[in-house]
């Protein structure tokens, strides 16, 4: 599951990716005309809206792509970098950048493109930006308060507006299309000419406008891979469909843990933040977090059998179905609750007088299990938590 860095692509190779993506970035910016300062500034005087068209199309394209890959379960949206928002510094910094844009005629990315094709004014712009950055870093303490004021975390705009991602995507796409039509009209007015759009171009533009809207609508109405997975789990649970899943009762589990603990992964899937006590050797992964990518290698590993336990049998059953759906070849449901296990094994009651041999044997077994498992629990106390696999959210931003 993407993003591929750092798990599938090493951070060192990431720099090679950076260089390659930079080539694509620079190439497209220059092809679009962003190395021309007059073309860039045209946006602000109404004679050339290329910047808006390129910029908006790019943003909408990337946004729909991100939604799409998230929808089909190829991109984990929780892992990608979302710029944090510090209200004052964003607004004031943005206004200062706007002033710099209109005075200098470039932004940092476009100045690099213009430099690459030999524009001397771009070189001077870059020299200026080096100075501006140096000013900030040298006198940082003076700006620190403003820089850090009013942090509201890293919200997504759809959450701020109280709508779904799809709804915002659709809204932005429609706004973009409206802006393209509107600005083309303004541009003609300002320049006093009429741009003729040929029939074939008209057809292409229509397709280009309809396609993104359709894609978003599809994303909106079809269930995402995750939603489908969850509904499959629910319906299998409702229908008691436990195909491919075995069960284990208290005696069996106690026996297996006593003699073959190395063959089992006991996973307590109880939905709680603090688990006071569980089955010895167990790790705690909440059912709702079981499908997180960092647990996938536990679920899918083939050397141990995963036994799902919980303080409530239904949770363990759902967890086993979910595990089976995402690739566990041999999941096992513990058919009792954790507390029943602990009561039976850890508070063994002596058999009544005159008990038969079977009852005495059972008592002995429980006593034995009691000693064994208590020792085990003592030894493994610090292993109750799932292995800490550091989840590194992608770093990003420009500052």
């Amino acid at each position, binding site marked *: 599951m993407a993003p591929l860095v750092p798990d599938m692509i090493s951070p060192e190779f990431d720099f090679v990716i950076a260089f390659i993506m930079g080539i694509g*970035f620079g190439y497209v910016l220059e092809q679009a005309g962003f190395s021309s300062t007059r073309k860039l500034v045209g946006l602000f005087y109404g004679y050339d809206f290329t910047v808006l068209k390129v910029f908006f199309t790019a943003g909408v*394209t990337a946004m729909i792509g991100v939604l799409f890959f998230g929808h089909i379960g190829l991109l984990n949206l929780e892992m990608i970098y979302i*710029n944090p928002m510090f209200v004052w510094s964003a*607004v004031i910094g943005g206004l200062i950048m*706007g002033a710099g844009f209109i005075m*200098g005629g470039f932004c940092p990315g476009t100045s690099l493109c213009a430099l690459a094709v030999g524009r001397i004014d771009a070189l001077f*712009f870059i020299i200026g930006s080096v100075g501006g950055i140096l000013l900030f870093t040298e006198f940082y303490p003076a700006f620190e308060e403003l820089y850090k004021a009013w942090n509201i975390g890293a919200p997504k705009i759809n959450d701020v507006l109280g709508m779904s991602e799809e709804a915002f995507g659709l809204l932005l796409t429609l706004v973009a299309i409206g802006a393209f039509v509107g600005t083309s009209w303004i541009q003609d007015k300002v320049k006093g000419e009429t741009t003729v759009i040929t029939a074939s171009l008209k057809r292409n533009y229509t397709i280009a406008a309809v396609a993104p809207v359709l894609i978003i609508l599809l994303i909106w109405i079809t269930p995402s891979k995750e939603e489908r997975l969850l509904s499959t789990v629910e319906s299998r649970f409702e229908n008691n469909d436990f195909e491919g899943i075995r069960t284990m009762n208290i005696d069996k589990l106690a026996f297996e843990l006593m003699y073959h603990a190395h063959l089992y992964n006991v996973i307590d899937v109880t939905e709680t933040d603090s688990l006071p006590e569980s089955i010895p050797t167990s790790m705690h992964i909440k059912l709702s977090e079981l499908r997180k990518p960092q647990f996938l290698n536990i679920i899918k590993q083939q050397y141990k059998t995963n036994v799902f336990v919980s303080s409530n049998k239904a949770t363990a059953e759902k967890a086993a179905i979910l595990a089976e759906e995402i690739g566990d070849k041999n999941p096992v449901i513990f058919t009792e609750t954790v507390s029943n296990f602990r009561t039976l094994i850890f508070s063994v009651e002596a058999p009544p007088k005159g008990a038969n041999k079977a009852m005495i044997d059972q008592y002995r077994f429980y006593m034995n299990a009691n000693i064994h498992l208590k020792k085990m629990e003592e030894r493994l106390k610090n292993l109750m938590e799932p292995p800490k696999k550091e989840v590194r959210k992608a770093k990003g931003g420009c500052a």
Partner: protein
Amino acid sequence: MSAPKAYMNPYFAGFLLGIVLLTTIYITGRGLGASGGVKAVVQYGVEQVAPEHYNNTPYYANYKENNPGSPLQNWLFYEILGVLVGAFFSGVLGNRIALKLEKGPGVQNKTRLIFAVLGGALFGFGSQLGRGCTSGSALSGMGVMSFGGIMTMFAIFGGAYLFAWFFRKLWINKVN
């Protein structure tokens, strides 16, 4: 030398730019940027010129912590190297490579260069205060629906429109 070729259709260019951004997000989980790459060079410069100052200033120390090793061991530094190469390629293909100065009609070279430096300085400073420029904050922010990125975008473009009137003589001939 033949005349420069026409630019790409803006919507198609935008689509390609979106694909580059999407690919970057898909592979690395982060967006594109520009000012951060220039910043890496600035940090490197400070480290080389005044190593003692670099090591003793909290801001640089903090930067170093996030970029262990050289300040140039930075994603955006490698990315802007790519930008230079990619833009150069495109310029060659479009016959646009030329050592020249672009400016508004009737503007003196000296004026253009002074304002280029001033504008650069403001943009450089603003990008640090606002945690990213048009690429890292506005464009990449839009791709991932970041509220902060989109607000910064509005501030940048809004600011430029706000100040456009004052600097109109830099860019357009007639004052309507």
